[in-house]
């Protein structure tokens, strides 16, 4: 049984599993963090949809939920093989997981990155290629307003000291969210660049949207649409395991580059390594060497 605490409204969620936990792999033992250093150590990978929620369905009947699970499993394996990170999947079988539980899993595991994997579809013809999303500013602001409302509900507003403390807390929370949005955009740019570069896909760009699964994540969070399952040609490619491996390889390289850049930024100035090099310490992966 897993349990999660969700807010607004306050909820306790108990996730009862018949076999293994949603969090599929036992946590990989990691060396203790140096004080004041916040590297990328835990990554939550979220295979979109699942169970009754099939997601998009291709012309030949391919279901998004199946391919996102394949991609997520492969990405977990590759990331853990290439980088000193622990990867947690929000689901490892064909089950329906609430959107808020997905981000709760990331928060519970104190994840440093949240990557939700999806396949796209469109009405009409001609849409193909990859696109990467991070949370829209309006949605982030709305979330902040909700958090503020929740905070105010939970305290006695007649006490000015409490109000001031709440305001300070909200300002800090808002600053953290702004930082996460900027980092989310940085990660999204790297992922989109790798997908375009590696697979020569049409660049549909980095975008923002009020996607539910990105709300409430207290870390940089992106949603990657790796291709259009509604496009017959792309549907065929996505069914090919070697094509999916190439997609996973691109995502792994992007995460490696993000990790190298982020960790280098947080080192004391004297200890910083050159970030343009794909062989930067801790990256462990190759790839094009343009900074984000």
């Amino acid at each position, binding site marked *: 049984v897993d349990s999660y605490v969700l807010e607004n409204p306050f909820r306790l969620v108990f996730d009862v599993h018949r076999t293994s936990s949603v969090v599929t792999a036992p946590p990989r033992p990691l060396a203790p963090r140096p004080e004041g250093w916040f590297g990328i150590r835990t990554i939550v990978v979220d295979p*979109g*949809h699942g169970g009754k*929620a*099939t*997601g*998009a*369905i291709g012309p030949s009947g391919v279901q*998004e939920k199946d391919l996102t699970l394949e991609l997520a499993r492969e990405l977990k394996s590759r990331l853990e093989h290439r980088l000193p990170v622990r990867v947690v999947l929000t689901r490892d079988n064909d089950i329906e997981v*609430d*959107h*808020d539980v997905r981000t709760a899993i990331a928060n519970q595991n104190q994840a440093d990155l949240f990557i939700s994997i*999806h*396949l*796209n*579809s*469109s*009405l*009409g*013809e*001609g*849409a193909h290629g990859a*696109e990467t*999303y991070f949370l829209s500013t*309006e*949605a982030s602001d*709305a979330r902040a307003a909700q958090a503020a409302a929740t905070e105010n509900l939970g305290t006695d507003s007649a006490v000015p000291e409490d109000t001031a403390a709440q305001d300070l807390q909200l300002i800090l929370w808002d600053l953290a969210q702004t930082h996460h949005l900027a980092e989310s955009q940085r990660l999204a740019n790297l992922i989109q660049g790798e997908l375009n570069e590696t697979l020569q896909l049409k660049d*549909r760009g980095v*975008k923002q*949207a*009020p*996607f*539910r*699964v990105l*709300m409430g994540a207290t870390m940089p969070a992106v*949603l990657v*649409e790796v291709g*259009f*399952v*509604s496009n017959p040609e792309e549907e065929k490619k996505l069914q090919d395991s070697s094509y999916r491996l190439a997609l996973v390889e691109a995502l792994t390289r992007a995460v490696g580059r993000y990790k190298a850049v982020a960790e280098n930024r947080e080192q004391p100035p004297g200890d910083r390594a050159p970030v343009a090099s794909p062989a930067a310490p801790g990256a462990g992966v190759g790839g094009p060497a343009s900074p984000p």
Partner: protein
Amino acid sequence: MSRRAAGLVIALAVVVVGAAWWWWSSHPPTEGPAAVGTGPQARATKVELNLYFPADGGLLRAERRVLPLTDAPKQRIRAVVEALLAGPQGEGLYPLFPEGVSVGSIQLADDGTVYVDLRCPTLEAPPPAGSTAEMQVVYSLVNSIVWNVSQTRQVVLLWNGIQPQTFAGHLDSSSPLAPDRSLVAAAAVQR
């Protein structure tokens, strides 16, 4: 004129005016705009406007249409949504849903938030879709409503009376959505 005769004339005048008012109110003029609803503000006039339908490339494209609209905002919203659900008339544009989806109740809050209840007896939830298809459907409705009904600012979509957590697996539906210009194709409006 005696006082009695004057009283009779006044009474007769009242009866004549009353009868004329009753006849006029029960026989509205046959020429001019047709009345769609009830009440003085329900008189419809033909209005030219843009409806935004899904188009190729994962975008929305405007179709120029003429709809009979009244000044009543809820009637205007209903007319816009019904026209969207009826589907596009031009080439290269696509319907929002399979057949069988209709519009139920419409509510308009003082802050300009519109609540549109979409009804479909055969589908428990909106059809599964990728995020682009979902955004095409949602912003077809949101953009068309807000940009054509000045009293509106944002839209909440319900399905069979329920406000879902997401519309079709991605877009947050727990908060109202404002229009999104980024999905609208830059090409010319279809007539």
